[in-house]
């Protein structure tokens, strides 16, 4: 009996389609085709390029921060105000404008219709508007660099009251632009997000049942649901903060004396803001992580030529992690002061998340077990992701406990933890995904030597950056500080470590130029990829042309006969059977 057992009641029968295909919109002008395009693939590229451009800015900001921390008092243009502005903008851009936009707007738009066998998103026009609102949000955010006072320096969490008090950089214009930009981002994302969710629910091709969907789609789908439900909290917080700032309401602002002057605020609750912010902020971690989980499952299965281990458990783990992410938000607020029972509850729910995430890690490792592993560049990044996610996850278990969190909360330990788990890991997944799907997007392979060079420098470099930060954190070196002079508990050697971290950061940041060079040059010089260079089973690799044309699949939509992971089926001619191949003698399916 082969791995792919045949159901006893299986019949050779293809039911006629019950629902007619929707008509595609066909643009006539160049502008309509490439700029104001309603094709999800073009929108995906627009999203990705904008996100990567703004991400580069955030990368430069992080290098500037590291210059100050590694070599204090050397760079006179990095003032304390400028430093805290860099911190704020780096965090906000990376989390929301880069990772969220890239995973959902970029990969979501490109992969969902292709992988579920749809011609496009269900509402292409709203999808297009979604991108343009996102671009507007990005431009508003970047505009804050050029207004009087510069961008806000409130920290990416924007905690009141200091956010809108005089003395905080950008307390007048910068914060307003930030809040308005976030508002637009949420509105734009909601238009796109409705599309992604409804496309998965309604526009799958015939035979593509929910449990035959690739895990990438499951990850992006669940993350989108989380985002749709979590972003309203950010929206509410942004609206109320804007009113506090502009119209003088006291939602969040307590009675306060600032610089010798009693302000008109009274009685507001800063902790209310924190609850709203983290009700968004914690699911945000999984909005970034779940698509990465899905993508990594895909990469590992394809490049190890093995079916994913425990597919159904993987799906349920994604869904359970998504659900749990809504009941853990206050673990970001242990140091804000809370009822001990409250803290106990949130510590418990936080630690429970370790169960489904551990299941995922075990399943990735078991998929690799005895697989025919090919150490291609995407596979290297995927393995790098699993390593890094375990590291970041373990420190998460430390910080989930109230008594461990309280002393560590304002130290570099937290910086190390959250960069490992939600910066390095997702970025490794992004790189893996780009190396994996680039051949489909452009029709050409990326240069493998440059890719391996990029991987090793990035992977080793990132560990040189973030591993030492754990030690700094345990020493008690506080985060967010402009400069750490030598104190009783910070020895001089901490500064040497800091300088080393900065050098590693500069090297890693510079190496990303190699990646960009590879992306650009390979569009022309890359080896032609053909339709299915990796021998993958999912539908996006089965298109008639590469890159896929408008409408994705030629005249007929593919019919799906099997799940997405028929790799190395015993008795089959090749080591993969695409999803749209029906049963026959030579596919190895038992009679």
């Amino acid at each position: 009996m082969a791995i792919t057992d045949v159901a006893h009641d299986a019949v050779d029968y293809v039911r006629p389609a019950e629902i007619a295909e929707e008509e595609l919109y066909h643009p006539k002008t160049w502008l309509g085709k490439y700029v104001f395009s309603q094709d999800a693939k073009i929108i995906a590229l627009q999203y990705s390029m904008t996100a990567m451009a703004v991400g580069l800015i955030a990368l430069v900001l992080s290098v500037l921060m590291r210059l100050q921390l590694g070599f204090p008092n050397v760079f006179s243009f990095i003032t304390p105000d400028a430093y805290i502005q860099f911190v704020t903008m780096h965090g906000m851009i990376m989390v929301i404008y880069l990772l969220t936009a890239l995973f959902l707007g970029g990969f979501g738009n490109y992969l969902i219709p292709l992988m579920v066998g749809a011609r496009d998103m269900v509402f292409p026009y709203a999808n297009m508007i979604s991108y343009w609102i996102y671009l507007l949000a990005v431009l508003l955010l970047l505009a804050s660099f050029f207004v009087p006072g510069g961008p806000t320096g409130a920290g990416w969490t924007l905690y009141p009251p200091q956010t809108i008090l005089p003395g905080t950089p950008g307390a007048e214009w910068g914060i307003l632009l930030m809040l308005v930009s976030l508002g637009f981002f949420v509105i734009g994302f909601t238009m796109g997000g409705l599309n992604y969710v409804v496309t998965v629910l309604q526009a799958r091709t015939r035979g593509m049942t929910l449990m035959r969907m690739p895990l990438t789609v499951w990850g992006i789908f669940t993350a989108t649901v989380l985002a749709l439900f979590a972003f309203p909290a950010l929206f509410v917080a942004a609206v109320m903060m804007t009113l506090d700032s502009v119209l003088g309401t006291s939602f969040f602002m307590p009675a306060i004396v600032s610089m010798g002057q009693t302000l008109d605020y009274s009685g507001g609750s800063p902790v209310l803001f924190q609850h709203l912010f983290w009700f968004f902020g914690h699911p945000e971690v999984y909005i970034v992580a779940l698509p990465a989980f899905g993508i990594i499952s895909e990469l590992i299965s394809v490049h190890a030529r093995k079916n994913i281990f425990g597919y159904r458990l993987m799906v349920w783990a994604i869904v359970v992690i998504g659900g749990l992410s809504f009941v853990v938000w206050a673990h970001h607020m242990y140091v804000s002061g809370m009822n001990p029972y409250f803290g106990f509850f949130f510590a418990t729910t936080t630690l429970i998340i370790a169960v489904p995430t551990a299941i995922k890690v075990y399943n990735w490792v078991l998929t690799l077990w005895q697989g025919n592993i090919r150490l291609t560049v995407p596979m290297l990044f995927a393995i790098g992701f699993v390593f890094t996610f375990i590291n970041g996850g373990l420190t998460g278990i430390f910080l989930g406990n109230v008594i461990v969190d309280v002393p560590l909360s304002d130290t570099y330990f937290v910086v190390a933890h959250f960069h490992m788990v939600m910066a390095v890991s997702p970025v490794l997944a992004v790189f893996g995904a780009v190396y994996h799907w680039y051949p489909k997007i452009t029709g050409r392979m990326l240069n493998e030597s440059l890719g391996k060079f990029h991987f090793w420098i990035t992977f080793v470099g990132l560990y040189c950056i973030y591993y030492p930060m754990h030690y700094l954190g345990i020493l008690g070196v506080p985060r967010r500080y402009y400069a750490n002079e030598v104190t009783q508990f910070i020895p001089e050697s901490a500064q040497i470590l800091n300088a080393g971290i900065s050098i590693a950061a500069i090297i890693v940041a510079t190496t990303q130029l190699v990646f960009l060079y590879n992306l650009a040059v390979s569009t022309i010089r890359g080896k032609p990829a053909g339709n299915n260079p990796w021998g993958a089973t999912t539908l996006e690799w089965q298109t008639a042309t590469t890159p896929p044309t408008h409408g994705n699949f030629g005249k007929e939509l593919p019919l799906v006969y099997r799940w997405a992971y028929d790799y190395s089926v015993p008795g089959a001619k090749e080591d993969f059977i695409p999803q749209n191949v029906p049963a026959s003698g030579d596919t190895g399916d038992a009679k």
Partner: protein
Amino acid sequence: MTFRQQLANKPWVFQRGEVADSRGFLGSTPKVTLGVFLCVASILFGLFIAAYFIRMGYSDWRPIPVPAILWLNTMILIGSSMFLQWAAFSAGREYPEGARLGLYLGGGCAIAFLIGQWLAWHQLGQLGYFIDTNPSNGFFYMLTSVHGLHLIGGLIAWFRAIIRVQRGGDNNLIRMILELCAIYWHFLLLVWLVLFGLLLVT
């Protein structure tokens, strides 16, 4: 396949040749979309209301007086919702005059409601209850604005529905559009009733 069967499926067990139409198991696409959007909007209002309750617990909270005109506005919004429901029913029974009349009256009532809300603001302003006077005032102005903006968004869809109905054509399409309008209006009515109840009780 039902939703439950789909999830219970063992995908690695090969189902030979069985190609089911997996689409549309939750109803028509526009309705599903509206449903998902209403979930998002419910969470938005729910979070505003949660913030309202938390902020209410602080000692500086002084309840805002409820202008009498809000009762009238509530009646008008109920009327608006009923007219749109009637429009949807009429379209279902191939009675275009009724559909058109219901649509006009429903939208007209919604506009009257918005004017009424503005009058309520005006009255409160004249009494000296401005947005920054007290957090309860802040919440009143903010919540009525957010609700009003949702209604204005609905009126844009309503306007497009009018164009579609005037042009005539496929009755099924018109019926679906009117049903979607009616569902959205019922939702906004429900939200308003909750908000109004909150104002009355607290």
